[in-house]
């Protein structure tokens, strides 16, 4: 029991985003979270497509919309099956640019097995789950300081990463290492091109006042005729505009080739002796390389060699129930497109960035933990992810609660 208690304690910072192992003394847990935000403006107009210059987006990276939006809702069930085995099921919704994309989906359904205390221990998980290699990638809007996912996650991974696969992790006192293999359903991979995989390592330390978590990871995938399923990817419907307006048909450009993404991340924090205030910095840097072919339905094809980087840094300070923070984000792209249709496919795919534009976004956040299970969030976002700046405001509410066993506490 002592071993597993230490194991579970170890997992808490590692898997704080959406992963946890039900403790033996609470074999069944049911957690819920909800984040909803009102925003003052759209990133793009209703008849436009959100395409960050220099990148080939996809997945679920929908643009933020004016008005009230449920950013995320999750309902997670964890069951401790026996001494070594547990099961996790989580359903959720994500904000979407289209009503038919907002339905509840199964995000987690996996079985975990822990063993081999003498080696570490080892944890094996199999099923549909979020990736563990990047803490920010699997974080929910209810768990982040900001309501919006990082630009790097949006551009490189299509915002979320849920796929079927297997994970093997090894732990020591302060080190965690693991590898994951995926079916390839999650952007930027496609299942038809074979398995994707990743490997990661992480160092964690917690002292009296300081805490530190940092790590590095590598993700490799292949894609075959990968589409931007936000707007294309199937039969192209002619968009219908209100009278007097026009909508351009989304150029359904595909990518076939390899995508490698690597990253480093860190989370350092200092907590005062009386725990009245806490300050820290979270940051992540990602680099992505794409090597393959851009092509479309009418037989045009051009070679693509792309190096992109994305980074974000988020200093913050928490005083009692109030957290103030700033998140700064940057993207760069160095793309070479070769072939007769390079101009057209570069423009259609979003990879062309002729002016060398470097997208960025700055978010100022005030989060007030109003009640133990409810927080209020205010954001000011200077969004320069597109050529035209967008300044918007957001006011949101966050609810996180352990529904079972019922004790009125928030989960995690």
């Amino acid at each position: 029991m002592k071993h597993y208690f230490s194991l579970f304690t170890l997992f808490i910072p590692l898997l704080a985003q959406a992963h946890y192992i039900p403790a033996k003394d609470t074999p069944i847990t049911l957690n819920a979270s909800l984040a909803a935000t009102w925003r003052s403006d759209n990133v793009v107009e209703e008849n436009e497509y959100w395409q960050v210059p220099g990148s080939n987006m996809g997945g679920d990276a929908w643009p933020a919309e004016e008005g009230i939006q449920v950013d995320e809702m999750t309902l997670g069930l964890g069951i401790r099956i026996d001494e070594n085995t547990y099961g996790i099921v989580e359903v959720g919704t994500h904000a979407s640019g289209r009503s038919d994309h907002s339905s509840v989906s199964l995000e987690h359904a996996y079985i975990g097995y822990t063993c081999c205390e003498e080696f570490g221990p080892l944890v094996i998980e199999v099923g549909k789950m979020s990736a563990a290699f990047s803490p920010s990638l699997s974080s929910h809007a209810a768990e982040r300081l900001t309501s919006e996912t990082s630009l790097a996650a949006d551009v490189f991974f299509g915002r979320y990463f849920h796929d079927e696969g297997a994970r093997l992790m090894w732990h020591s006192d302060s080190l965690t290492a693991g590898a994951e293999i995926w079916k390839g359903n999650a952007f930027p991979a496609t299942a038809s091109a074979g398995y994707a995989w990743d490997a990661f390592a992480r160092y964690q330390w917690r002292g009296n006042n300081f805490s530190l978590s940092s790590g590095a990871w590598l993700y490799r995938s292949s894609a075959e005729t990968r589409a931007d399923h936000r707007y294309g990817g199937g039969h192209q419907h002619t968009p219908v505009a209100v009278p007097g307006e026009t909508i351009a048909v989304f150029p359904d450009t595909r990518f076939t080739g390899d995508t490698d993404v690597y990253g480093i991340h860190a989370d350092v924090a200092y907590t005062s002796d009386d725990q009245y205030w806490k300050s820290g910095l979270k940051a992540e840097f990602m680099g992505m390389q794409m090597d393959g072919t851009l092509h479309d339905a009418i037989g045009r094809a051009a070679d693509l060699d792309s190096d992109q980087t994305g980074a974000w840094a988020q200093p913050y300070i928490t005083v009692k129930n109030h957290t103030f923070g700033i998140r700064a984000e940057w993207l760069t792209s160095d793309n070479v497109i070769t072939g007769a249709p390079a101009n057209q496919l570069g423009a259609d795919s979003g990879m062309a960035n002729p002016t060398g534009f470097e997208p960025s976004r700055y978010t100022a956040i005030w989060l007030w933990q109003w009640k133990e299970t409810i927080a209020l969030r205010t954001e000011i976002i200077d969004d320069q992810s597109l050529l035209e700046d967008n300044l918007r405001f957001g006011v949101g509410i966050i609810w996180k609660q352990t529904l079972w066993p019922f004790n009125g506490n928030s989960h995690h």
Partner: protein
Amino acid sequence: MVRILALVTCSFFMSVLLSGCVPESKTVIDDQGARISSFDWNIPDSIPFPKVPANNPMTEEKFQLGRHLFYDKRLSSNGDISCSSCHEQDKAFSDGITRATGATGDVHPRNSQTLVNAAWYQTLTWGNPLLVTIEQQIMLPLLGTDPIEHGINEANFEQILQSIQADPVYNELFAAAFPQQEDPLLGEQAWNNSIKSLASFVRGLVSFNSPFDRGELNASAKRGERLFNGEVLECFHCHAGYNFSDATTDRETQFSQLDFHNTGLYNIDGSGAYPEPNTGQHEVTGKSEHMGRFRAQSLRNIELSAPYNHDGSVATLRDVILNYANGGRVIASGENSGDGRMSPVKDGFIVSFNITNSEVDDLVEFLKSLTDTSFVTNPRFSNPWLPPSSQQTFTESQEP
């Protein structure tokens, strides 16, 4: 120790984010010369250049020689047929009749096509997937025997060539078009040069200056454009892209899927049969699933090329639209009677739809907006044998 570690971690991130580790953004586009051509295509920047065979690069001299040959009736067995006999400029290089008659009286089984932007077609005839260059296609009307069009054959070959060789105009034109050849009018070489020049002229017949291209649609045409691009009528799937045909290729196209379509025009035997010999792609491949499949024609200048469909059996654009609205054509009596709507080999996009008379008018108005009057009056494409003052108003009686 921990403070140092935290400091190092923070410093590392800040240095990564703020230093030269993050490369500057840039995009290098290498189109490998896709927009380079020594020939003046006179097309908008938005239109990709067409593919040109490596053994017949475009030159103005070959274009001009081909223009003379195109309008020359001496290139026929009876001295009465030129390319322009069935491809008249004022009709967008079609002929306005159901089916044309060749030099020996053979009636062509198919309607004469327009020669609008032929350089951008994947294939060159109504249903033959094997004819992929204009050079290949031109051999058929000149030398073909089923049907006989120009009627050039082994018996009259030398005589026709001699008449060309004897013309000082051609001596000058051939020499200019093929300066590297010692005698470009010599024997078989002269024919090869003629084919290449005719192909160059046809390849240079370019039309991208309609009201549609200029964004000058009237209100009715705009309504028709929405119908055209709508999911109800589905027109845009087969008549796709800048040339309004899914059989389009250009320098940017690396691989091409050859698309032919059965529009439910006939269903003679209940299995989708078309009247012989006009069975489209099936005529070449013999495959039953290819029965009645024809290439989607470009709709540019379609207003000028009536009658319509592969055999000219549909008189007006309105009738074409109504056939589609019915999901196929019903022929109640006669040897070709049958219900095209029930054809099992009909294209999936040919489904019935409801359309009002005013909507048909709007759609026709949109199609008319694809008429490029500068194309059909351009002196550059007109008969060079006519006096300059009359080159825009071509009449057969004035041909050489």
